[in-house]
């Protein structure tokens, strides 16, 4: 399964990539929404795991654009900030049903989540 990590915190994104690779996934990291949109042309993810609050384009916006290009891509959002709830409330009121995980997310929890998703990915 191909997983794209989007987070402006480079150490977080890079260590998560390593964890996913060790667990047998193909993983890439992008450090902002614009870079992610460029990356998906060459690396087509099955799952996108994105931080919400990022400078410039936020995670909800970036994933919205990814989803419009890759409708079958599964989106998971994570964040640790109060403003996230506002963003998510707006997104949900527009029909968005992506999961939101609260940081810090333990790697074993994320791996367990991905393993359940694997059953549904073509």
């Amino acid at each position, binding site marked *: 399964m191909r997983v794209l990590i989007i987070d402006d915190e480079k150490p*977080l994104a890079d*260590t998560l990539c390593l*964890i996913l690779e060790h667990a047998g996934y193909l993983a890439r990291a992008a450090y902002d929404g614009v870079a992610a949109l460029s990356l998906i042309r060459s690396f087509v993810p099955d799952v996108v795991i994105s931080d919400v609050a990022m400078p410039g384009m936020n995670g909800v916006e970036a994933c919205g654009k990814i989803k419009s290009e890759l409708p079958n891509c599964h989106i998971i959002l994570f964040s*640790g900030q*109060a403003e996230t*709830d506002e963003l998510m409330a707006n997104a949900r009121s527009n029909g968005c049903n992506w999961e939101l995980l609260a940081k810090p997310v*333990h790697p074993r929890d994320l791996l367990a989540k991905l393993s359940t998703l694997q059953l549904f990915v073509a």
Partner: protein
Amino acid sequence: MKRPESLFSSDLWIQALESYAGSTHLTVRLFDGAGRVVLGPLHPTPLFQLFEERKYVTGLFAECVRQCLAQSGSRPVVIVSQTTGLSVVGTSLQLEGEIVGAAVAGFALLNFSQASEIQILARDSGIRFEQVWQVVREQKPEPRQRLILMGELLQILGDSLLSENHRARQYQDVALKLNEVAIEKDRLHQEFFKQQERLHQVEKMAAAGQLASSLAHEINNPLSSVTNALYLLETHAGLDESARSFVTTAVTELDRVSRIVKQSLSYYQVGTTPLDVDLSVILGELLEIFNAKFRRSGIELKRKVSTRSELVGYPDELRQVIHNLLLNAVEAMPAGGRLGVSVHDSFDWIHHRRKGDLKGVRLTITDSGHGIPRRDRALIFEPFYTTKTEQGTGLGLWVLQGIVAKHEGVISLRSSNRKGRSGTAISIFFPSHIRSLDKSAKLKLDSVA
């Protein structure tokens, strides 16, 4: 106009000044232009009597008179003289542009707030501390502004009595009415300062909330990175046994940090979407987590939990409420004791008489700990107030109160310090629905593995 022979000895003066003294609760003394006492003390208060016996304040009155008389030639003045928290207000009296005397009205406490100041007063006056303390506690301090207003009123009263005696009674009535206005003005001043203090507190709380929110965000990202790095290290093939045990310890402690961040600071990540919550499930999960702590501390748990106790609320914040209460109960029983927890359907019996009104869920936690001292009970919900000298942040119960208010809940607290019967019981009622919310905003919670 002919100057009266005996300015201060008439019945009219005495009557007017007694009335003035009674309504202002100040001891009134009157001095003539030569600084001699010509009337009073009228309405001697316990405070005045205490210090007058030792002649301690004679100097204070005299100093006030001296200052009033030194204003000769200028327009009437009001002076507030003070020493070690005791105050005297005086005013000069004029007749046909000439100062004929100084009326000294007040004898009051001003801003006595600490035992250390009382000690200085006791030492300087040669009166036993306990005696001074007793009287000072019973007499309310007067704000400086009020004493100045009283001095102005005394001036109006005195000047009117000096100028035309046959109209003095009329002026006396006016002066007393002005006195009422001054007292009301003073009361409004006090209210204003209280409101300012309340606003300051709210700002403090908002700042604390913002600070905690920023802190949580700042911590969460590096915390995530460290969690990931330790996870990678723990599974690294090149690690020997002893190094792996160090990593395991680091992982365990970091898990603790993560829980603390989520539970303590995550409140400030205010949820805007309420969910269906079963409080008995949350309580059950937390009791599992606390189980080891109960055993280590010698705490005997008695639980009475309904199978389903549902309400609409914010699950993370409700979890934090229960966590805080359990933690406080455990910390109140360092040598062990009894802990009771119950969750069941209930109604708000504080605000509603009938069982059918405002249904919901009641959470009760009781402990047989040392109890909350009476002097702390009104303050424990204030931000940054803590009785835990080392590890307390002072935010726990303040946060809890905020969460309960968000759920439109009601907190009731009982505590006792009595030996052999000490302990605390805290009961929180959560209504089934938060009435101020639109029910259509509810979502089901997706569980995360």
